[in-house]
């Protein structure tokens, strides 16, 4: 029972972290119809910038400045890169962001090298918040949860309750009409792209110390983020939230409970073959859930795409 509670908290942290990335990505998608492959790269840039700033000014200034820098870079990418490629169609846009992701990874390796950066949790938050039956929960995890929840509420408030949010929502559905009403739609697009990447930057700043700041961090998280928004339904903010939490919990639970495939197969009445060593299916029999935890999201995505192509909460059919 206690272990379940600990896992719920761990999964919540992972899920909310994923949500910070997928929220921006899904907003950008519903606006421009393009999946930004470089989204996780901005997350990585956030972590690296925050590390560099924290060397000089400390963690908190990093948390403040790094997302701003990342957001400005994101807006620049939209203004000078994506807008140019947009005229060629969607596939070149997708390829452009893919190339950008490769380029940013190379750039990070170029500047900071291939090793992991010593970017650590700040001293103030480096203590145990509370413990559940001997399992200590670090304060930093609680801090991560608070930051993500605050961002989610803020985002929801801005999008649904403010004038700016109304204009953004209108620009999502009827960009031409909104433009005819005198709003600068390209500027709104650029702004949303900037804010989306800045959110990814925040995620990078707070995830860097726990998940490690290294050149592969974008790649590790990047494809999971796509999986998340595809499962949630492209363009749906609520879908992104639900799918993020779902994936966070599924992977956490699969990792901490050691379920073996042989037990499951035995459970449904298939008997383990006697000469397991010589059997060509021996690897399937010996699979355990921690082994496949990282590919569970992909299996889930393929299943969702086959049976419900628009995703859990998606309305539009792309």
């Amino acid at each position, binding site marked *: 029972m206690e272990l379940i509670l600990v896992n719920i908290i761990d999964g919540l942290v992972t899920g909310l972290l994923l949500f910070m990335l997928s929220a921006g990505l899904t907003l950008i998608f519903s606006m421009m119809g393009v*999946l930004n492959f470089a989204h996780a790269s901005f997350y990585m840039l956030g972590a690296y910038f925050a590390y560099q700033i924290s060397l000089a000014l400390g963690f908190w200034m990093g948390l403040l400045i790094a997302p701003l820098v990342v957001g400005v870079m994101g807006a620049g990418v939209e203004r000078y*890169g994506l807008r*140019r*490629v947009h005229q*060629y169609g*969607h*596939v*070149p846009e*997708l*390829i*452009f962001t*893919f*190339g*950008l992701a*490769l*380029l940013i990874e*190379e*750039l990070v*390796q*170029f*500047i900071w*090298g291939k090793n992991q950066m010593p970017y650590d949790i700040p001293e103030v938050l480096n203590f145990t918040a509370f413990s559940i039956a001997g399992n200590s929960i670090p304060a930093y995890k609680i801090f991560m949860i608070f930051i993500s929840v605050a961002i989610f509420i803020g985002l929801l408030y801005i999008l649904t309750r403010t004038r700016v949010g109304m204009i953004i929502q209108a620009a999502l559905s009827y960009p031409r009409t909104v433009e005819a009403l005198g709003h600068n739609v390209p500027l709104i697009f650029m702004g949303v792209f900037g804010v989306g990447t800045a959110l990814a930057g925040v995620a990078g700043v707070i995830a860097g110390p726990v998940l490690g700041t290294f050149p592969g961090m974008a*790649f590790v998280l990047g*494809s999971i983020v*796509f*999986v998340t928004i*595809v499962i949630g339904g*492209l363009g749906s903010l609520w879908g992104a939230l639900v799918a993020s939490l779902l994936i966070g919990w599924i992977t956490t639970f699969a990792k901490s409970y050691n379920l073996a495939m042989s037990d499951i197969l035995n459970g449904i009445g298939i008997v383990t073959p006697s000469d397991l060593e010589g059997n*060509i*299916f*021996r*690897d*399937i029999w010996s*699979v355990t859930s921690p*082994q*496949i935890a*990282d*590919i569970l999201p*992909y*299996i889930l*995505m*393929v299943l969702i*795409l*086959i049976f419900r*192509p628009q995703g859990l909460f998606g309305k539009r059919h*792309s």
Partner: protein
Amino acid sequence: MSQTDLPDPARPKEQITTDPSRASERLRAGGLTLTIGPWVIAAVLLAILPSIFTSNAALTIMNQMWITVVFALAYNMLLGQGGMLSFGHAVYAGVGGFACMHIMNASDFFASFPLPVLPIFGGLFGMGLALIVGSFSTRNAGTVFAMISLGVGELIAACSVIIVAFFGGEEGISGDRTYAMPFFGNEFLQQIDVYYLTSFWVLVSAVLMYLWSRTPVGRMANAVRDNPERAEFLGYSARWVRFFSFVASGFFAGIAGGLFAINYEILTEENLNTASSGVILLVTFLGGVGLFFRPIIGAIVFTLVQTVLSLQTELWAFYAGTLFVATVMFFPGGLAGLMMMHVPVFKLGKARLLILPYLKTLLPAAIGTLALCALVEMTFHVRHAASGDHEMTLFWTTFDSHTALPWIVAIAIAVVGLGIARMTAPALRDAWNEANTAGGAA
């Protein structure tokens, strides 16, 4: 450029009717005719290249190149001909390759047929996997297809560490190609023998893929790419057209995988993962999607960049990435598209007009870019070289990277070179417009 769009009295209008007695127009009608010329030239080139570049390293590079050509052409069947963007195509080549490795290791069976037949098995396995995946992934093109391909790609790449029996886990699977039945007494011990085997398969697969693009289903793939709704109204199922393209592409990707297995005699997880899939996307797009032959140029350029540049600098991937992003942004037709842009100029007989402006703009631009690369290399050296190691060699000059002089020189060359290019660019644009306009003094 807009002048070229105007109706041009000097050029006859594009003929609408087709005359089947002329080879070029039979092609337009979708007939299965092959213009022999280019293929003969390609075959002769393939045959004589090893006599020009005799070293073993050159043979290895060329083998790598031809394998990439087959793979890029197969990939272009999806991206270029069918409009399907796949982020996991390495999987089909990889699985084909792994299957070939297993056949190589099944000694009794392997000894019963000659080695040149092996890639067919790779193709069949690639096709088999494509049949399974394609049955659900080709329902949609566009983003959904791209996402499924990514998901399936990641899934199979991740399986390589779990299903050890087939993928061999971390260390992969290795074999020995010489156990095959001797082919006219040849056991493929030498690199040159493998080269001719690869060349043969490149030619055969390229011809087959070209013919495929000429069949009705190949033509329909283009129609479905451009306007699936309209194709459906004409009575074709967009889904099945995509499915056939996908399966055929899987077959040829598998052949590329089989050739890889024969060449390197080892396959690992690296042949399956997203990075390899990304590389083939990069290669295809660099050459240019759309027209059939374009990815060949991409494959050749990329392999050269990869093998030659990576000997010179650690940063080759950075340059390749920059080249790729620049291509997507400025030349969506790819390198081949850039070349094709000059065809009208040559047809008008005005290519001479462009030589001088090109020299004036591109030469300084190239020098300026090289100076930029030098700056990048120097920065890299200062940041990452072992401490105390201040000497570096760049463009055949050895200097101390921690002194100001080389930096000043490089910055000066970059500024001057790019500055001249910027100044002469308007003249080039004028010359380009002039060269593309019919009539006037040539």
